[in-house]
């Protein structure tokens, strides 16, 4: 039998199609890896600078209602080889006590990106592998049996003592052996290009994942080689087996993954989204009714300049008097409890929406699992954590981090002291002015502002007060977010189902074509 394997693989290796396929795959994989890694570097640097910005912002915080650290999902290094990370799930979460994360903050926005590249479909590494490897695998096996038949050599081959079993296995392994060098070398080229440009060294887990990805790519080749064997054992002419192979390829690789959009539009995603938006609007309305009373009073106490307006949960007054402070303190518990209630209601709404959407997404994914090409995509995405499980793990971590931040603010009395809404400290130099202003009538105030000296005095006082370091919050012991990548075992667990399905697919196709070959008429 080994002689047959050797003969078959040599026969494939010494053809022009092998040479062309080998060169094309190496060049395209290498180039693709280069282009994608450059793109990834942008993203990576953007992430680093966003982290820096966040630190800067935390250092300049003056009131607790502004403490809303933004966290960014750190991609696994190998994400270069997966589906464009962040595009599907979003990657940034604002941590605040008014929102318990279910989605990323940048997931579903009417994104004012000004980015017109949406016109072009993005083409990731997975697509390239799917297309090239599946096509080559079919080309190496489509005429394995029908070709021999057409040339009339099949009868001769069947007289070999290895028997039909030996010949079948020999032919299948032969086409795989011809495919293997292409897969291994082009993946290696892509990986080396990536390594040279990678922004950080790879961990042991990354190496293991890379190894498994290589193995799964071989599996993809094996699956399509099996399809080729099956078609070739069903037909008696090379031309027809080729046409059938090509049509099967178009359906499995091009049409099926694209018609998923159609299935998902039939499942009512948009209706769900509309319902969700309507409910959210209603919830906002309720919440705003409650908050507006609070805001109304607070606004009344905004004294002249340097008052930034209030947006959800953020109220900052630079300069308020005792009367105002005491009054606002009576409003504070109401505001905080309204915000907490809003947060938990919104969490309920969002997790329901997420769950229903997930159920539908899974249904479409299951439909796609007919095609080994989609299975391959699922496995790779699971291994490099660009799949749903990776996203959920990030959201889970964001939720835990939010809890930590809330507890931190609570333990520093953020929610119950005036530091929630003002950076005003006792004995500030302008206090006299404030007291004066609070007791003035409007005409008096108008008259006072006509006096340029007094105005100047007030502004100098304010400026001095602003420079007071005691106004800054000391957030150096605020817990910082540390993204924890899912361990490899977990990722493998997520990929296991698809790996098993892929193996089953290969086994079934091989067995069926073996049975067909057994009753194949060589005449």
């Amino acid at each position: 039998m080994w002689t047959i394997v050797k003969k078959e693989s040599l026969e494939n290796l010494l053809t022009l199609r092998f040479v062309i396929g080998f060169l094309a795959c190496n060049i395209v994989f290498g180039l693709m890896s280069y282009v994608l890694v450059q793109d990834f570097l942008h993203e990576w640097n953007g992430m680093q600078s966003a982290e820096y910005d966040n630190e800067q912002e935390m250092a300049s915080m003056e009131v607790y209602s502004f403490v809303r650290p933004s966290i960014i999902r750190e991609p696994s290094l190998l994400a270069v080889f997966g589906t464009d990370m962040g595009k599907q799930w979003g990657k940034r979460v604002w941590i605040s006590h008014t929102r318990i994360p279910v989605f990323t903050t940048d997931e579903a926005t009417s994104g004012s990106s000004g980015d017109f590249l949406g016109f072009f479909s993005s083409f990731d590494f997975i697509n390239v592998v799917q297309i090239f490897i599946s096509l080559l695998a079919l080309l190496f096996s489509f005429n394995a049996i029908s070709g021999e038949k057409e040339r009339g050599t099949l009868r001769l081959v069947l007289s070999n003592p290895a028997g039909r079993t030996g010949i079948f296995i020999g032919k299948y392994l032969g086409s795989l052996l011809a495919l293997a060098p292409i897969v291994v070398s082009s993946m290696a080229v892509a990986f080396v290009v990536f390594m040279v440009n990678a922004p950080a060294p790879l961990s042991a887990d990354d190496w293991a994942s890379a190894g498994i990805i290589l193995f799964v790519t071989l599996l993809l080749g094996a699956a399509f080689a099996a399809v080729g064997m099956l078609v070739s054992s069903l037909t008696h002419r090379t031309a027809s087996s080729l046409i059938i192979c090509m049509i099967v390829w178009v359906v499995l690789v091009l049409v099926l993954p694209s018609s998923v959009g159609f299935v998902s539009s039939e499942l009512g995603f948009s209706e769900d989204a509309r319902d969700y938006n309507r409910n959210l609007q209603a919830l906002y309305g309720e919440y705003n009714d409650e908050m507006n009373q609070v805001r109304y009073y607070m606004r009344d106490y905004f004294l002249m300049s340097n008052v930034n307006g209030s947006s959800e949960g953020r109220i900052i007054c630079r300069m308020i008097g005792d009367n105002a402070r005491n009054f606002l303190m009576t409003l504070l518990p109401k505001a905080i409890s309204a915000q907490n209630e809003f947060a938990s209601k919104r969490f309920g709404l969002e997790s329901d929406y997420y769950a229903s959407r997930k159920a539908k997404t899974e249904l479409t994914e299951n439909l796609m699992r007919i095609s080994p090409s989609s299975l391959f995509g699922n496995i790779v995405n699971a291994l490099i954590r660009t799949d749903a499980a990776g996203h959920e793990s990030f959201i889970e971590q964001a939720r835990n981090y939010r809890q930590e931040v809330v507890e931190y603010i609570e333990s520093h009395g953020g929610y119950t002291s005036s530091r929630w809404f003002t950076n005003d400290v006792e004995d500030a130099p302008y206090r006299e002015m404030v007291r004066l202003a609070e007791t003035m009538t409007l005409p008096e105030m108008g008259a006072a502002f006509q006096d340029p000296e007094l105005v100047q005095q007030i502004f100098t006082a304010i400026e001095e007060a602003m420079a007071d370091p005691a106004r800054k919050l000391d957030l150096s012991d605020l817990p910082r977010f540390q993204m924890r990548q899912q361990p490899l075992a977990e990722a493998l667990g997520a990929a296991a189902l698809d790996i098993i399905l892929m193996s089953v697919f290969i086994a079934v196709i091989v067995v069926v074509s073996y049975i067909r070959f057994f009753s194949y008429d060589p005449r």
Partner: protein
Amino acid sequence: MKSLISFWLRQYLKQGRLIVIYILALLLFLLNAYIYASRWEEDQQSQSQRTRSLQEAYDSVGSPDDLAGSGFWLTMPVIPLRFIADNNLEEVPTRRVVTTRNAGLPATAEIHRQQITGLWDIDLAFIVGMIFSFLAIVLTFDAVSGERAQGTLKMLLTTRVSRYQIVLSKFVAIVIALMLPLLVGMLANFLLLNVFGVVSIDGGQIAILGLFFIFAVLLLSFFAALGILVSSLTRSSITSLVVLLLLWVLLVLVIPGASKPVAKEVVATMTPEEYSNTMAEINGNFLGELKRTGAIDRAAAMARVDNFQFERIWDGVMEDFQGRRQSVIDSHIRSSYNQSETAALAGRLSPNVLFKQAVSRLTGTDLAAVREFHRQAARFKQTLFSFLGAQDAQYVARNGNFDAKHDSAGLLHSDGRGYLSSNPLTAKIPRFEYRPSGLGERIAGAMADVSALVVLVLVGVVLGVFAFNRYDVR
């Protein structure tokens, strides 16, 4: 020549491989009709929702103050012919908020990204550009080498027909064999879409579909010519197929797919973070400057005494500030346009992109159409602003200054022109009307790409004839 064409055609039709292909093509056309019928319904729903909220925004404007404080979300109208070339319209910014001061950053319609979308939209451009071009290759890879194996060529060359007649007739026969399913599929597709009410039998739409058909035939001619060329350069059918498939993958998948990352490399635009940082910087500088010069404090102090004075100072300050913001927005949009145009340019190495660009221009789903929309939206800002100016002048002429009836409660929200008056408007506020460019203009816009495609086809045919002339038929 004619008899030769019908001879080849009959040979193809007898083969049976066409039948499978025809059925697949027809199914895809029906699928397309079904998808876009439901999408059209969806589009119309969201469009009417947006029109309603825009109407509400118009209606809620009662006074100059309201107008100065409100923004209007303008949305590019949905395009029924989207089933021809979809271009991921959901992910392209086709909305924009316009105030009297600013035309905001173009925004995408609200999408929930987790909804799985396919890698490619099954629009007509996909069916022709990907599936039919693939079929063209499957039909032609053995056009010459296969005939050699069968010995037909030797036989034909003994008759009076010349070599170039053989190859040209073969080329024409293949193109006709591809045109037939295309025609049948498009007809079925049109009827189905007509039933669903997406398209109607009107001159403009039929003209566009007719032109689409012509462009599609051009693209398929290119692939047929390519197939004949490669087939007459190789001795074995398998080698020819491998070469053709790789060329196909390169032209149809790799080049268009790589154009996006390449454009990102070549033309830099601000990331969302950079953009918001720049904006924050402008805001910060602005506040800092105001504080330094005391303008805001003077203005606020003035507001307690003399609103007219306040309005003047505040107006000048805001004009400057919003102008700075607008220039950042504008330059960001400009570089985004550049980026996208670079991507299209890089993609034009592939005839598929030429075809797709021409077809998108025709249907009005391309960058030029979206750009036109944003240009008109930005012009609407000017209209609103001068309307407000006119209201302002009228008011001053009547009442002398702004202070007359204003109660100075201290609520200083002075966006836009900072009206503190709640006097009713004396005229209806202008409405936004989007006028898409006409069909003639769009056809003219598509011509550059189409001519490039024609040149490619001619070059392909000439090279194919040349190669076949030197082909050894033994």
